[in-house]
């Protein structure tokens, strides 16, 4: 990685704060109107638990995961918490190569799927996260670089968010709405995509 792990988490926190009202608005349409508030509270807590001089990627990700688990409040707490904790387990290598990052991504995806007992097509963050991972892995496995992998992953995640507009929610609070959830994009898929995009932007700049 080209920059400190702190800078990546900070970029995530900034993008969540910038999109706090937008995420809450999306959640108001099909859920309980707290996604933006919850995620912002989580990332604002997390950012106080790490600092710029931290070099141990695994340790930082662990603190981020535990911080989210105990401060987000909604289902995104255990889901995003698991994402970071699973990535932390894989990030114990001294050298975080692009292959290690791919494995972190995979462990995070598997962790979220298991925690939420969700699969693709249920109008959840998995609809953005799984295609993003697949696009990422395809680039890395065919010898491409991290920049290209991240760019393709963001594009796939954005397509995933669009896809969530076309399907009925069967998980979480939105499932109470049934067919009325069609036409609305999933807040969790959206926040995941924003976070992934912030990683790409931070890598680039």
């Amino acid at each position, binding site marked *: 990685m080209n920059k400190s792990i702190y800078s990546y988490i900070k970029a995530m926190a900034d993008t969540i704060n910038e999109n706090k009202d937008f995420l809450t608005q999306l959640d108001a349409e099909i859920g309980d109107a*707290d996604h933006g508030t*919850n995620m912002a509270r989580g990332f604002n807590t997390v950012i106080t638990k790490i600092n710029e001089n931290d070099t141990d990627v695994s340790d930082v990700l662990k603190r981020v995961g*535990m911080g989210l*688990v*105990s*401060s*987000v*409040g*909604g*289902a*995104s*707490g*255990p*889901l995003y*918490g*698991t994402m970071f904790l699973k990535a932390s387990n894989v990030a114990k290598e001294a050298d975080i190569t692009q292959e290690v990052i791919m494995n972190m991504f995979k462990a995070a995806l598997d962790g979220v799927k298991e*925690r*939420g007992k969700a699969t693709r097509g249920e109008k959840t963050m998995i609809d953005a996260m799984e295609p993003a991972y697949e696009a990422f892995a395809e680039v890395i496995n065919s010898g491409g670089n991290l920049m290209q992998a991240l760019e393709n992953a963001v594009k796939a995640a954005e397509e995933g968010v669009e896809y969530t507009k076309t399907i009925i929610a069967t998980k*979480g*609070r939105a499932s109470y709405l049934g067919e009325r959830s069609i036409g609305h994009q999933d807040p969790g898929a959206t926040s995941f995509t924003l976070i992934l995009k912030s990683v790409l932007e931070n890598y680039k700049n």
Partner: protein
Amino acid sequence: MVGIVIVSHSNKISDGIVDMCREMAGKDQIIISAGGMEDGSIGTDAVRIANAIENADTGDGVLVLADLGSAILSTEMAMDILNDNSINIEIKIADAPIVEGAIASSIEAYLGGNLESCLKKAEEAKNFIKLNKK
């Protein structure tokens, strides 16, 4: 003694359920409220739940009654956190209505029931008939 932990998005709900259970299950029965967030806002906190489970265990296991959505996810996360820290407690989450299940299972625990029988009592509360409709 089986410990009982109440997980709700609202601390007022979990505190209130504990009060209701106490009326019948006695003051010595372990029933711990793990509702809401540290700062009092609505939500569930896996770390708070993990601490409550640890405090509720006397070696005979802990039964968790939870409301909905993230209460279940956060409880499952709490179980993983305890496991990752090598804290071995037998834990069951009851698939039961939180108020009725809590009362039924805390009485069972107070009467000396084991974790399985407390779980059964909680889950039977699902079929409890409140109205005799003709």
